[in-house]
């Protein structure tokens, strides 16, 4: 998971793209160590001290981890639970739409 996300973030560094996490670990200090180890540089919301019972995942009815949503530049949900190659394709398609001037 992390290697693919690292490479996606790196590849699209100059594009209007953002990878935003919602993290449900409860030990923040341990998490920060792990993020340094795994070179996780993208921003994450913290789901709070209740971990997987926290407010953000609850609001989005998240039942399994990881859960993925891909939004276009207007904030519209366009893909769900795409990973690896499929995630790349989804993001590239939406970036192309932006560049193509699709309103």
């Amino acid at each position: 998971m992390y290697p693919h996300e690292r490479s996606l973030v790196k590849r699209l560094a100059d594009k209007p793209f953002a990878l935003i996490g919602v993290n449900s670990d409860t030990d923040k200090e341990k998490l920060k160590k792990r993020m340094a180890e795994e070179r996780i540089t993208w921003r994450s919301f913290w789901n709070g001290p209740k971990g997987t019972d926290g407010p953000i995942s609850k609001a989005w009815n998240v039942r399994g981890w990881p859960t993925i949503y891909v939004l276009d530049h207007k904030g519209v949900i366009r893909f769900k639970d795409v990973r690896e190659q499929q995630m790349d394709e989804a993001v590239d398609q939406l970036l192309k739409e932006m560049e193509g001037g699709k309103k």
Partner: protein
Amino acid sequence: MTHTRAAVAALLVVAAAVAADDKPKSPAERLEAIKKEQKDAEAAYFKATRSVGEGPDAQKKYEELYKAFDKGQADRFAAAVEIAKADPKSDAGFGALEWVLTIPRAYYQPAGKAALELTAEHHAASPKVGKIVAWAGAILRDETSNPAGQALLKAVAEKNPDKAVRGQAHLAFATQAKVKADRAEYQKAANADKLAGEAERAFEAILKDYGDSPRLIRENSGTIGELAKQELFELRNLRIGKVAPDIEGEDLDGAKFKLSDYRGKVVVIDFWGDW
């Protein structure tokens, strides 16, 4: 004096143990023994998998270990079902059915089918069957996957006099409708929106009719209404084509930010954890 008492006590313990070995176990005792065997077998299986390592035939070893464990548990589930068959309405008989039907793996083995059929036949109208129905509903998310399970859910919905128990069955049907809708969305099927509408109506109905009923899958799992509201929120706001709801929160350094800060960019939202 103490010495003698201790010796007598020891003799009595041995005598009791010998006597217990001679006496046939009651169904309840046999069920407890099966449950304990399962627990021990699980612990042994997990311990064994942890020492497989990463050699070239690791995968084969994992498969062998699982195969052996799975055969053992199939036998244990079958033994429990035999206790239920002998006297389905007894406490031990019901206990055996409840034990088997709160283990997901059992549903995919012959003993699971037998347990579902016995429960439908003897306990569809029992106030005690709520937990079984809740588990069956959580496991049988595809309405076509398990005819015996579907028959139990239908029998309970029709016959059970207890509102909360009926609620578990109706929750199962609503969940199945949503799973159908989610699958259609994933497959970009033409009827995806229609199925989403059906799922929405199913959850609206259970919110209205069973909103205050507790979920019986485990202790303190909230009400049917609370779950229905979450599923309705997802069906109404998190489908493909909807503008995503905003998220307001803090990052891992405590700085406040919003999802809508990133409007104008393509965004991947990744619900994750490092465990």
